[in-house]
């Protein structure tokens, strides 16, 4: 089965990102394909590399990065949603005249077309939200 994943909530406040992570990890481990994980609304906040949770808690963005690296997984932040919320890669930071970027390894910025494309490519698009 080919899955597309949409995550609409940020880390920690809502369970959506945790549930999406567990689903995605289990699907990949079971041999399914995940065409793309798309982060929208506050979900883009999952892509920050500056999050410092307490040591006895999970690190949600690092966990996504590790999963992305292990399975060569596409982790896409919506550009418009990311810019609104201050999630910038180096190019975006330069273009906007900001003093730093904050994207975690393995995440990329792209457009909403990538979400529609995931819906087209996947057998099932699973939405994790509130």
């Amino acid at each position, binding site marked *: 089965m080919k899955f597309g994943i949409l995550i*609409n909530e940020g880390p920690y406040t809502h369970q959506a990102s945790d549930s999406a992570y567990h689903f995605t990890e289990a699907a990949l481990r079971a041999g399914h394909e995940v065409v793309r994980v798309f982060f929208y*609304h506050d979900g883009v906040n999952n892509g920050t590399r500056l999050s410092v949770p307490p040591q006895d808690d999970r690190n949600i963005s690092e966990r996504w990065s590790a999963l992305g690296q292990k399975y060569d997984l596409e982790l896409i932040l919506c550009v418009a949603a990311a810019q609104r919320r201050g999630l910038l890669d180096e190019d975006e930071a330069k273009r906007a005249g900001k003093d730093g970027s904050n994207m975690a390894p393995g995440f990329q910025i792209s457009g909403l*077309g990538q*979400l*529609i494309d995931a*819906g*087209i490519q996947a057998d099932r*698009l699973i*939405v994790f*939200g509130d």
Partner: protein
Amino acid sequence: MASKKFLYVNRKAPHGSIYAQESLEVVLIGAAFEQDVTLAFVDDGVYQLMQNQDTGGIGAKNFAPTFRALGDYDVSQIYVERESLEMRGLSKEDLMPLTYEDEDDDWAEKDSIHVVSSDELADIIEQQDVILNF
């Protein structure tokens, strides 16, 4: 490009959170990708289509006029759940008129909004390939 039936389920009030506004951005992109697009409005989502919205008091962007562009994007299937309207003391007359030009009927201007029961909406949901909840 392959074409699928996309349904966007709008469940939240237009203001108070950004879901409605950002959902509309996805709808417009999806329509530009020439997918078959259907919108459903349920729960507080029905408030998104209210006439005469004025966001001056809260200083938020009034994106309601953008709904009027949907007809130009060939988005003509807009379903509003009757039960959600009734529960809020609303009827179709409280909603902004949204229309499209039917190319199969000499470009006649037609109503895009259809008020349907919860059961009818369930059938519409059943027919979709891709469902996005906002």
